């Protein structure tokens, strides 16, 4: 055998062996942590790349936000870090928020807090953020037309520690606190101000683009949070060290926090096995290895997310849009999906069935009984009946419209119930779920083809569109391996399901639902959200799917003193070595 072929054969054997054992992946190669430090694994394939506590679309990521919030504390930390979704005052700059009786304004009281350079944190620092966002709202990732800052009509500093924000109309205080005021980060005006908001915006964004300067640029050294940056590599490793000047309520429990990047989940898992990660994660399919991690001194703890998971229909798709617009067709699809079994078998028990627009992994006052009770239980025979009673007949294993009058408006005779999903690649659980759904839909007579692509590709290929656009060929989209949509604390659907909402990918539109969504943000009662929950559980704007845990956390024994935030943020200051 020639040397070249021998090498090839050897390569084949080695490669196959490698495939069998691990796959090719990178790791960060760090050493094990001591009690003065902790090694935290960032999600696979994520590299921290933004320090500024003002997100732009190109840098929008919950992990970037988590890092920024450890450096500059939010005005109102409304999250799940205390075990329930609520205002965590210990991690906030504000001490109180008093809404006017008419719910058209709020008076905020700041705590007695100081920047790391000793200067007090005042209303001026909040006003600085307010002006910066007002002037540059189009570039701000948190912007939704009509919402903050559009609906904040004025900012009035009453004194150094009190200010009032006035709204354009009455809003639900809980919604305003949870979804809008929680976006504010007081910023060190005395250091960052460059004259005008526009000039300041450009200056800060340009400075933030230099990742290599995060640890050295004096701009980033005036902070209000419990940690400061010790090092921040362009490869993604971030080392945070305790801010000794911190005077807030969440004193760092561990002096040094190492945030480690990983190229793949397998690489991270290998690091866990080798003991170099103190707080990491495994995939749902690895849950049956729980004992092996427990034996290595870890605790396996699911991290539940405040999220929903779904597959949007493209209602404007030229081929299938007319079918998707028929409620009976959507009901047939939903009734073909056995969420209970998917959650139990495919997700290994790390997901809960989701039947509507309000997260169901946690109990909440927002969930309607209609959604909770599942209006469309799994039954392929019922799904089949729905189709046959509306003019469809099975031909060659695929339902075909035989009576266009019964099939519904725009559905031509001869239309086959065939649809394709562009699904997120890289997850065995997602692949298995899609295979199971494909199989289940086939029993109803619905052909479901699967195409996979990396998640960014899925998002870019399944945008909002009109039927005449060439990009509108997509029919179904799935980008929810770890949950499709993470809510702010108050789970409104203004950007998801409101007509022309920013993330209403499939162009769902229902004036009645629009009214319910508007009511949910303005009413001071949770009844409005419950009505919205019930309406969308029944109307099926998307295919509702099981809600997976955000991650299956694996923590070293002795790490504790905190709750995993269901809003998917991490809060290093709350971590403690308890033993």
């Amino acid at each position, binding site marked *: 055998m020639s040397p070249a072929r021998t090498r090839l*054969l050897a390569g084949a054997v080695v490669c196959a062996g490698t495939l*069998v054992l691990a796959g090719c992946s990178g790791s960060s190669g760090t050493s094990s942590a001591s009690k003065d430090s902790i090694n935290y694994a960032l999600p696979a394939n994520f590299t921290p790349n933004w320090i500024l506590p003002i997100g732009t679309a190109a840098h929008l990521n919950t992990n970037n936000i988590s890092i920024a919030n450890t450096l500059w504390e939010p005005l109102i930390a409304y999250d799940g870090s205390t075990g329930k979704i609520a205002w965590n005052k210990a991690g906030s700059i504000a001490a109180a928020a008093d809404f006017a009786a008419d719910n058209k304004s709020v008076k905020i009281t700041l705590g007695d807090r100081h920047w790391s350079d000793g200067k007090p944190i005042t209303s001026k620092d909040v006003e600085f953020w307010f002006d910066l966002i007002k002037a540059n709202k189009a570039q701000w990732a948190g912007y939704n037309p009509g919402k903050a800052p559009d609906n904040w009509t004025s900012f009035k500093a009453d004194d150094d520690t009190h200010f009032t924000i006035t709204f354009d109309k009455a809003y639900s205080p809980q919604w305003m606190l949870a979804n809008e005021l929680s976006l504010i980060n007081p910023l060190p005006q005395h250091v960052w101000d460059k004259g005008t908001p526009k000039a300041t915006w450009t200056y800060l964004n340009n400075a933030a683009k230099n990742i290599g300067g995060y640890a050295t640029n004096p701009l980033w050294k005036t902070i209000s949070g419990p940690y400061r940056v010790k090092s921040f590599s362009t490869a993604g490793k971030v080392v945070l060290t305790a801010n000794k000047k911190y005077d807030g309520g969440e004193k760092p429990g561990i002096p040094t926090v190492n945030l480690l990047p990983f190229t793949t989940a397998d690489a991270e898992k290998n690091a866990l096995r080798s003991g170099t990660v103190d707080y990491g994660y495994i995939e749902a399919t690895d849950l049956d290895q729980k004992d092996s991690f427990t034996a290595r001194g870890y605790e396996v703890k699911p991290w539940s997310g405040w999220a929903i998971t779904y597959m949007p229909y493209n209602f404007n798709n030229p081929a299938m849009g007319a079918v998707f617009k028929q409620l009976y067709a959507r009901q047939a699809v939903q009734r073909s999906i056995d969420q209970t079994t998917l959650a139990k078998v495919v997700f290994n028990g790390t997901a809960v069935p989701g039947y509507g627009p309000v997260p169901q992994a946690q109990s909440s006052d927002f969930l309607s009984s209609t959604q909770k009770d599942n209006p469309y239980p799994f039954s392929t025979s019922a799904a089949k009946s729905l189709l046959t009673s509306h003019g469809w007949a099975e031909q060659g294993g695929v339902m075909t419209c035989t009576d266009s009058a019964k099939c519904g408006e725009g559905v031509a005779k001869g239309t086959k119930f065939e649809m394709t999903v562009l699904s997120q690649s890289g997850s065995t659980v997602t692949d298995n779920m899609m295979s199971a759904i494909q199989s289940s839909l086939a029993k109803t007579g619905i052909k479901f083809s699967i195409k996979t692509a990396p998640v960014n590709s899925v998002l870019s290929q399944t945008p909002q569109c009109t039927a005449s656009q060439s990009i509108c060929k997509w029919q179904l989209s799935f980008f929810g391996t770890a949950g499709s949509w993470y809510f702010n604390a108050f789970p409104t659907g203004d950007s998801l399901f409101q007509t022309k909402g920013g993330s209403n990918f499939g162009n769902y539109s229902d004036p009645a639902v629009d009214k319910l969504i508007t009511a949910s943000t303005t009413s001071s009662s949770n009844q409005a959200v419950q009505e919205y929950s019930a309406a969308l559980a029944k109307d099926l704007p998307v295919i509702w799917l099981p809600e997976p845990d955000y991650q299956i956390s694996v923590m070293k024994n002795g790490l504790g003193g905190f709750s995993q935030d269901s809003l998917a943020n991490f809060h290093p200051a709350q971590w403690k070595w308890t033993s």
Partner: protein
Amino acid sequence: MTAVLQTAPVEAVPNYRVSLRKFTRNKLAVAGLAVVLLFLLFCFVGPLLHSTDQTHTDLGQVNLAPGGAHWLGTDAVGHDELGRLMYGGKVSLLVGLAAGILATVIGTLWGAAAGYAGGWVDAVMMRVVDAGIAIPALFILLVVSAITTPDTAGLILVLGLVSWLVPSRLVRAETLTLKSRDYVLTLRATGGTHTRAITRHILPNSVSTIVVAATFQVADAILLVAYVSYLGLGVQPPKTDWGGMLSAGLTAAYSGRWWLIVPPGLAIILVVCAFNAIGDGLRDAFDVRGRG
């Protein structure tokens, strides 16, 4: 008186017989051929004997260990693993064989044309080959897979189009030596066309090189399709291939579910090694050195 030395007439043995004899004496090559034939039977005839549903999932039968009802157990969505191995093998072998042959055909035509034309045509054509070789095939495959929906025909086409470069070099080198042979020069001197020179003399005389290259191309194509599928960009469910099965089973590596990993991994190794052994055997068989 002159003594006349008389010798017994020697019967000429046809070249193909000599080659066949040499091939059959190569135990590794024969074993390789047997392995390939066995796998072809396993994948294409096996499903007739062991019929399984590879289209629908069965979530009540997931991850079952090998046993009576399922000789190789079941996978994470309840497919019978033995049936899946046959089903996936069909795709792997079909794509490997077809892509290998396609690559060889393209490479042969390109290499023969370049070598025969010579001069600047040869220079330009071979620089194209050099440029193609400089770009990793896997990279091209990943890009193509990311922008199109991979199916069996698409995979064959793409793999064939990225794998023809090496055979083209081999055939070009062979053509360069053949085109200066007397019989080719005579054909040209008597008015024979270039096409006739290539199709009647150069290609037939390069057949040993082409056949050997083809076997290696098939082996390489099977590996390439395994790579692509392993990365999740191969054929889409409910179809699968051995690389896809390996990828799907990888998460079970630490869960003791060896039946999801070992069979497809072993199948890839055996078939690739078998094709390489056949290629080596054929090369030795066609080698004129050492022939009496």
